[in-house]
């Protein structure tokens, strides 16, 4: 998406399109990614609850994973996961 010039900005930068924040892929900020060890995961959902980005999702098998388009790699899920099922891995 081409960036707008200053002349093309709407007055007061009002955003007229609801939900357009989803086009902003904060995953590009990430330097570490959470990796779930489903051997340890007890499907408690703490990672889902604590994720500030709301990008942790539960799969049909009941296990969790993060949407890498939005995961900023903050590590809160790994910090809060009390069975220690989540490890933060450096992005290559």
């Amino acid at each position, binding site marked *: 998406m081409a*960036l*707008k010039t*200053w002349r093309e*900005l709407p*007055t*007061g930068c009002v*955003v007229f399109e609801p939900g357009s*924040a989803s086009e902003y892929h904060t995953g590009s900020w990430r330097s570490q990614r959470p990796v779930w060890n489903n051997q340890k995961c007890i499907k408690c959902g703490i990672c889902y609850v604590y994720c500030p980005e709301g990008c942790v999702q539960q799969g049909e098998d009941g296990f969790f994973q993060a949407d890498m388009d939005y995961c900023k790699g903050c590590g809160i899920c790994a910090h809060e996961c009390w069975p220690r099922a989540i490890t933060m891995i450096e992005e290559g």
Partner: protein
Amino acid sequence: MAKRIGMEVAVAVAEAVGLCDIDMAAVYPITPQSHIAEHLSDLVADGKINAEFVTVESEHSAMSAVIGASGAGARSYTATSSQGLMYMHELLPIASAMRLPITMAIANRAVSGPLNILNDHSDIMPQRDSGWISIFVENAQEAIDMSIIAFKIAEHKDVMLPVNINIDGFQLTHMVEPFEMPTQEEVNKFLPPFVPHATLHPAKPVTMGAFAMSDYFAEIMKAKNEALKNSKKVILEVWDEWEKMFGRGYKPVETYMAEDAEVLMLTMGSMGETAQMAIDELRAKGVKAGLIKLRLWRPFPFEEIKATIKNAKKLIVTDRAVSFGGPGGPVFSEIKSALYAETQRPAVYDYIYGLGGRDVPVSDFIGMFERVLADTDNKVVDTYEFWGVRE
């Protein structure tokens, strides 16, 4: 011609705002603005105007409330002074960035410390770079006229910016002065209904005040700066319209005996009237003195200032605030930068005066002229002095 009446200026300002079909006001009382807050809340409580008066718990809340209300499409008003304005500070650039046409009266008062409730301009000067249109008034009539005009300027589709009207605390707010109050019919004719550029409404969701990172921040700042600079055109048009309707014209830079003046003085706000008396006395003595009154502080009227002062030999800038550790008063800095590239320009002097409500009689202005006229070899040019300070 409308009947001339006498009234306290702060009360008259509230009366004038009451003619403007406001939808809401959020005003936290603070000396010397309190009478605006009190009288406006009376007008609402007595059912004289159909508006919501939000009793907020602070000025931070007052500005937050008018930002929200203006975003919802309400014609919104507030007023404050000194510490209240400082408390609003972090919200002022948000109101202008969101292009919300809020109008606000500022009963100018010295900022603490030490605590002082009296008049100077140290409250508005730190707000200079907030992106608001900033107007100074000199007397009751101007305070009333600008209180009405401000809505039309702010809400113009090519402006959509907040406006503050600077009314010297006590020196002006608490004076009983004669003036002509426009009628409701006249104001209705002058001021069209507010048409917002966007509104907060559940049926048509929008986001206002969204987050922006480094990829957009500079473009947004540039757009805001251009909007403020371009507002001058509309300000001039609206002042012309007002003159056609009411016979009272306003300019960004007002002059008195300035055309042939060799020594000019520049004032802002209510001091202009006292300085005018000094000019009369000096002219009577044969001194070619003149006065310029800066009405529009932002957007700064560079062209008008340059055209007005280019033929003078000396220019005395007066400042009612201190830029601590800086090159002089804030007005002085601005005037000097306006003149920097000019080949023909006067020698510029700066007197910082009238701080914390200190009385400034006509003789003080005459003293400033005499001091500058005595500086025949331009020894103290480009310097500033605290006028009348005990050494």
